[in-house]
């Protein structure tokens, strides 16, 4: 940011303001080099993204453009059973973890004073949970559900494992959003004699709603692609199973592993399933961005 003034022709006058010297070549070079390096870092990071997207589309598009892919189950060459399984397991997980996560966040932000033992324990537990690898979460559930209780594998068990992975994401997102709701809003509501629970339900939550929905949708997108739990907790099937509480249930990640193990002849199916999974995740992901824009509190 050194200022240099070029002023040729008016000779006896000083050509630069006192104290300013032109940027030395070394510093100029350093600046340029750093700029080039950080730009290069960005370009390097984008290479795998585009490479991945191009490969996915190129190898998967042929498979998924066939209407049978979406309509018939794997037994008849489609993937409908896996798509249904994925959506069901994710939906079940969301139904359990969204209210649970939101209430935990309400407890942390609105009811606890952060110093109480329970609040600290809860925060700590949510922290732990957010760092648990998906395979360990799956083992957790396996240990309780299969070994201890001796109950059979099913889509619902996968959903329980997904709940463990999803709750911390929901709690985090909701907590952040509740924290930034202005205190004045709550006080204005209290001043009108509104009970606390109604203040939370009618003032605080609606104000934070767009952020919460975005966070929840991102959490759903994250757990939808989780593939470790399905390996341990549910068996594969090539047939349609509409009941997540009983029997084997396919899902897209599971289908990918299964078909991959079938060797190169099944790779078309694998890429098709991958593209389908990415499309489902993308729909939710972009939906979240749309929701956060559309439902943001009016600022004017």
């Amino acid at each position, binding site marked *: *940011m050194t200022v240099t003034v070029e002023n040729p022709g008016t000779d006896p006058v000083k050509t630069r303001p006192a104290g*300013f010297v032109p940027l030395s070549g070394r510093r*100029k070079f350093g*600046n340029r080099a*750093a*700029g080039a*390096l*950080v*730009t*290069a870092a*960005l370009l*390097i*990071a*984008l290479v*795998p*993204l585009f490479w*991945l997207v191009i490969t996915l589309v190129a190898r998967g598009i042929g498979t998924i453009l066939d209407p049978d892919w979406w309509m018939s189950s794997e037994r008849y060459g489609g993937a409908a059973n896996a798509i249904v399984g994925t959506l069901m397991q994710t939906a079940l997980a969301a139904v359990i973890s969204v209210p*649970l996560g939101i*209430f*935990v966040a309400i*407890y942390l*932000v609105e*009811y*606890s*004073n*952060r110093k109480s033992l329970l609040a600290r324990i809860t925060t700590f*537990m949510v922290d*732990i*949970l*957010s*760092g*648990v*690898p998906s*395979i*360990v979460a799956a*083992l957790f*559930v396996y*240990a*309780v559900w299969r*070994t*201890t209780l001796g109950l059979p594998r099913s889509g619902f068990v996968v959903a329980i494992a997904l709940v*463990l992975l999803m709750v911390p994401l929901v709690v985090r997102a909701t907590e952040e959003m509740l*924290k930034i709701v202005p*205190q004045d809003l709550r006080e204005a509501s209290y*001043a009108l004699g509104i*009970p*606390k629970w109604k203040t939370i339900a009618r003032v605080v939550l609606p104000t934070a709603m767009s952020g919460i929905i975005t966070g929840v949708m991102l959490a759903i997108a994250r757990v*939808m692609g989780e*593939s*470790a739990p399905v390996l*341990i907790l549910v068996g594969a099937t090539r047939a349609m199973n509409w009941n997540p509480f009983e029997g084997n249930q396919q899902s897209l*990640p599971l289908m*990918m*592993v299964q078909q*991959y193990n079938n060797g190169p002849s099944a790779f078309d199916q694998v890429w098709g399933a*991958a593209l389908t*999974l990415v499309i489902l*995740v993308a729909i939710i*992901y972009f939906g979240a*961005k749309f929701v956060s824009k559309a439902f943001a509190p009016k600022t004017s």
Partner: protein
Amino acid sequence: MTSLNEQQGGQPQGDPTLPGTPFEPEGDVEGLRAGKSSRLGDQIFRGLSVGAGVLVSVIIALIAVFLLAQAIPSLAKNTANFFTYQGEWITTGTELKFGIPQLFYATVVVSVIALILAMPISLGISIFLTEYAPKRLVGPITYTVDLLAAVPSIVYGLWGILVLGPALVPVNEWLVGNLGFLPFFQQPTQVANMSTGGTLLTGGIVLAVMILPIITAVTREVFIQTPKGHREAALALGATKWEVVRVAVLPFGFSGYISGSMLGLGRALGETMALLLIISTAGPMDFNLMESGETFATKIANNAAEFDSPAKTGAYISAGLTLFVLTFVVNAAARAVVTRKK
């Protein structure tokens, strides 16, 4: 943040100690004075919230107890040393033999490769986004980098073994041919690794792509918070953009960068599916990046279909617990760095 929470601790209440107040509130005056609410709705809502908090803690505690209860019997029957035994796992019968050094080695090696590759690139992107990028581009670029995190890990695995691995084959051959004197680029014991590219190196690269968005997000968050004063002071002294970064942004944000990297490391350690597809056969422990290897996560996932006896399950659960402790330590360290900063 604490002040905000302290403020909202109290219930809305009149001030009954004010002298000469003619106002006599109806209803449960005592309850109001004590800052309690007698309203049924409040009690239910409060109960639900507190209950949810307790439930989460109880579930996690229970699960930990269940896991330990199942790991301990198998560990007790383990005739080999859990931390040093390197042979085949024997998980049936009464004499169990299993150990984790190879799993530990492979897990750490791929994660470290990932970290070495991802850390400088994330730093570069964060600096680019906070200092160099035109304002209009910051949003779209952040968004695009975030998209990397949205791709399911199994898709990365598929891409890694079917596209990236084969593409790396010539590179690997060149490395083995010309740098074979280094311990990292020896001829692998599994010949197939040279034709499929399913090596620790490939696994590390894929993991690097996966953890890049996390590190970048955290680092960028911290860099943005560099106090304006520091930045302007540097500018006033005539610093170039790069010098602003060096004297103001980096010293301020470095601990955040480190903790972001550790969060990324925590993620890399637990990654299952991508590595399951890329490197899932056991390899030796000899720093050769051309080998394959089993990580904690892939070993468990690989054998999950055959969990039939409690002893067998317990053996794998004890491996899972080790992984859990490992990721817990890394994540806790990352959090400690962040908290100290605040």
